[in-house]
């Protein structure tokens, strides 16, 4: 490529305590290219980019911009060099408009005039093909619109090197392709784009070059045209692996959990679940798809007895007797006392499923510590269980007395899933069980879910990666804005079909317009 080098990193090292986030990483970003930084979770992609954006300061190593050595101590310094980063978690003020957010913290010499700002924002938007109303308030926006605001905020500050951290994690397939079109237009305009990702198909369809990191170390940079899914996976994971999910047909599925007309209101008083009805069956994985925050969490928490239910029914069919039990308005303990073995792997592992500062043994006790009449704890059974899980799920830990917060994400999840499966559930609910996990751990979790399905457990799996949902589930329930927008057979569906259902608006639903042209 004929383009000049914009940023060059030389031997960058960054450590957090004993953990080495980046070790001697050297790579370069050219002008007018899209570079992907590819790596598994925990491979140090975000840390590395944060050092360019001035969030962290490297322990050692140099950064060159246009060939000159620079020191970037703060995001302000980074903007001085034309570098802007769009973080995974948006940093916007909810009650401000897009334009207000964009100029927030910007010390412009000229007079503060919002209409002026709005005009310039619109200019930038139309140049690259964004759709954005500068006067719209953030809280009225969809996730994709918020992301647009973040990108324009960076462009407004004159950035010509843009770093996007996992920009597609929160987008539907349709929004993703829109974003990619915009990014390509920016590249034509001479800007450098760096996207941090672990999704291979995005790398292949979008970027010019791809740099791979593994465990904090730089592995290689290749031109995308020379790369394939398997070559990149190998570079990313470090060994050849075959990834397939073995989906068997459900054996003799019977209704296990029946949800009828469920309605829930969240803490802000808005309806988060509306008229949700479905059935989970034994020996089957029911996938739940939807844009993040569409009510998936509340749905699972309502079933687990953690979320207040306004109206509707939650009934459980006992597999041995066939009797129907009402689970609505029951606390988690009452549900247990009914003999319902309901296991729940919540989205927030260390904030809900486990206690980070407690060791593995004490975390094993969370569900069972009440057993017996003694006022004292019995740590023997939990210790045995901890050792068993460490052995069977290959948890990497110094021992069963290590606080779980010091384990890596994958191992934390193994501890949590291991505990939930250990109680031989009849219903297993898992919310985003592979979020933040490396490929090997992810497939281990998929296999565990599949095993439970073969044992006749009704598995409910909330996922974000549509490819995986389609591969793993038997049926997929799609949720949009707290309503069920579709129920599809996972064996005969496409990502596009689910993507459309995810964004189908309730208005269309209400008018019974089945055209499926949801925007």
């Amino acid at each position, binding site marked *: 490529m004929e383009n000049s080098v914009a940023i060059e990193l030389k031997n960058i090292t960054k450590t957090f305590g004993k953990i080495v986030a980046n070790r001697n990483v050297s790579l370069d970003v050219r002008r007018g290219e899209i570079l992907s930084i590819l790596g598994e979770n925990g491979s140090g992609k975000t840390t590395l980019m944060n050092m360019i954006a001035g969030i962290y300061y490297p322990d050692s190593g140099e950064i060159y911009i246009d060939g000159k050595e620079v020191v970037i101590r703060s995001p302000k310094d980074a903007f001085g060099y034309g570098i802007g980063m769009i973080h995974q978690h948006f940093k916007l003020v909810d009650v401000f408009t897009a334009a207000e957010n964009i100029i927030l913290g910007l010390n412009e010499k000229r007079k503060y005039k919002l209409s002026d700002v709005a005009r310039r924002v619109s200019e930038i938007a139309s140049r690259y093909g964004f759709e954005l109303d500068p006067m719209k308030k953030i809280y009225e926006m969809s996730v994709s619109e918020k992301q647009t605001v973040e990108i324009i905020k960076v462009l407004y500050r004159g950035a010509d090197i843009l770093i996007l951290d996992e920009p597609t994690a929160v987008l539907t397939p349709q929004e993703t392709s829109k974003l990619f079109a915009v990014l390509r237009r920016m590249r034509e305009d001479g800007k450098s784009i760096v996207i941090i990702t672990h999704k291979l198909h995005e790398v292949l369809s979008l970027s010019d070059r791809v740099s791979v990191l593994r465990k904090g170390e730089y592995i290689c940079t290749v031109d995308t045209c020379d790369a394939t899914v398997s070559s990149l996976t190998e570079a990313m994971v470090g060994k050849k692996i075959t990834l397939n999910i073995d989906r068997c047909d459900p054996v003799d599925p019977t209704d296990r959990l029946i949800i009828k007309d469920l309605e829930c209101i969240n803490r802000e008083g808005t309806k988060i679940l509306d008229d949700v009805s479905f059935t989970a069956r034994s020996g089957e994985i029911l996938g739940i798809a939807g844009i993040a925050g569409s009510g998936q969490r509340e749905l699972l928490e309502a079933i687990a007895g953690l979320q207040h239910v306004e109206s509707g029914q939650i009934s459980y069919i006992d597999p041995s007797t066939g009797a129907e039990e009402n689970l609505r308005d029951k606390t988690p303990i009452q549900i247990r006392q009914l003999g319902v073995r309901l296991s729940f792997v919540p989205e927030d592992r260390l904030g809900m499923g486990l206690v980070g500062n407690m060791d593995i043994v004490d975390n094993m006790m*969370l569900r069972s510590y009440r057993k017996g009449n003694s*006022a004292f704890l019995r740590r023997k059974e939990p210790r045995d269980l901890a050792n068993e899980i460490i052995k069977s799920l290959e948890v990497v830990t110094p021992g069963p007395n290590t606080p779980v917060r010091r384990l890596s994400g994958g191992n934390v999840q193994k501890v949590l899933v291991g505990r939930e499966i250990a109680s031989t559930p009849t219903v297993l609910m898992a919310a985003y069980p592979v979020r933040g996990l490396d490929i090997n751990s992810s497939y281990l979790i998929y296999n565990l879910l599949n095993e439970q399905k073969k044992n006749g457990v009704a598995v409910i799996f909330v996922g974000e990666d549509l490819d995986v949902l389609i591969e793993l589930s038997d049926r997929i329930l799609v949720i949009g804005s707290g309503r069920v927008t579709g129920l599809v057979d996972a064996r005969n569906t496409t990502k596009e079909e689910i993507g459309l259902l995810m964004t189908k608006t309730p208005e269309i639903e209400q008018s019974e317009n089945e055209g499926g042209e949801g925007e």
Partner: protein
Amino acid sequence: MRSKTETKKAHEPLFHVVKRDELSGIKSILVRAIAILAAIVVSSLVVVIAEKVNPVGYFKSMFRGAFSTPTLFWSFLHEAALLLCVAIALTPAFKMRFWNIGGEGQVLVGGLASIACMFYLGGKVPNVLLWVLIIVSGLLAGAVWAVLPALCKAKWNTNETLFTLMMNYIAIQLVCFCLDTWVKSGSGVLEPMHGYGLPSVGNKWLLNILIILALTVFMFIYLRFSKHGYEISVVGESENTARYIGINVKKVIIRTVLISGMLCGLAGVLICGGINHTISTTAAKGRGFTAILVSWLAKFNPLYMMLTSILIVFFQVGAIQVKSDFNISDVADITTAIILFFIVGCEFFIRYKIVFKKHGHKEAVNND
């Protein structure tokens, strides 16, 4: 638009702060030892400059405060035990992240209740019954003082820090009111009612010390090995987890704060009913606040609190001795403050290290 590429070349910052991995036991003790040494050096300087006193003599005098006579030594141990008692009382609440800073008030009302029993019932009922009443009423009073903020927190999610703090002032005023009512002369000083106090063993301090030691061991076991202790830890670490496994969070909060307040009340009973046999608004002597430091420095471990309470009381009685030996006042408090500052401040160096510029050495520096 990009105009500032040619910004003046920024320099690398002189140092930056880096989080450490968990420090080994020996190293962390070393850091603390260095901190205490540094504290002694700095306070010596202050002593020399401000009062022109020989620092060796100064620190000798400090030791005399705790160790020179058997009476001083016993009283030193007893003071440490009382502080330990309040720290033990506050610990379960703190472990649950319920910031009970109302220890002072809870101690005071506990003491007030026991003195009230002595004042109204002394001589009218058998002494054994009186002792029981003194203890029970003290425990109840402390519990009530603590549980009010807890109930409001459970019911309306009020801020317990402010609430418990304000309860301290109510307790002080309550003591004032009672003294006004009881002391007819209007002097506000209640004569000690020595005949009606709690019994003693050996000397007048030993029983209190033994009770508090037993309490410490009990609290250690309660927090570490009981189901209640486990629930306290879970609620403190994450209320969401507690809900997830079906712990009744409100019940645990109220139960734990009841225990916390009761034990503070016990401290009041031991101070007023056991030793002083009278009460004043300053009977708690700030222990409700100092105990927070004791508990925190010991990382909420009751056994370590024995050490931290002795350390802090050592400086307190040392300062009193120094004041009388050298006829100085403020400098003694200043040196105590300096030493505490270093002890608390060194925690930063246990958790973080400072890395100097690229070409400099890369080791932690432990002097403030």
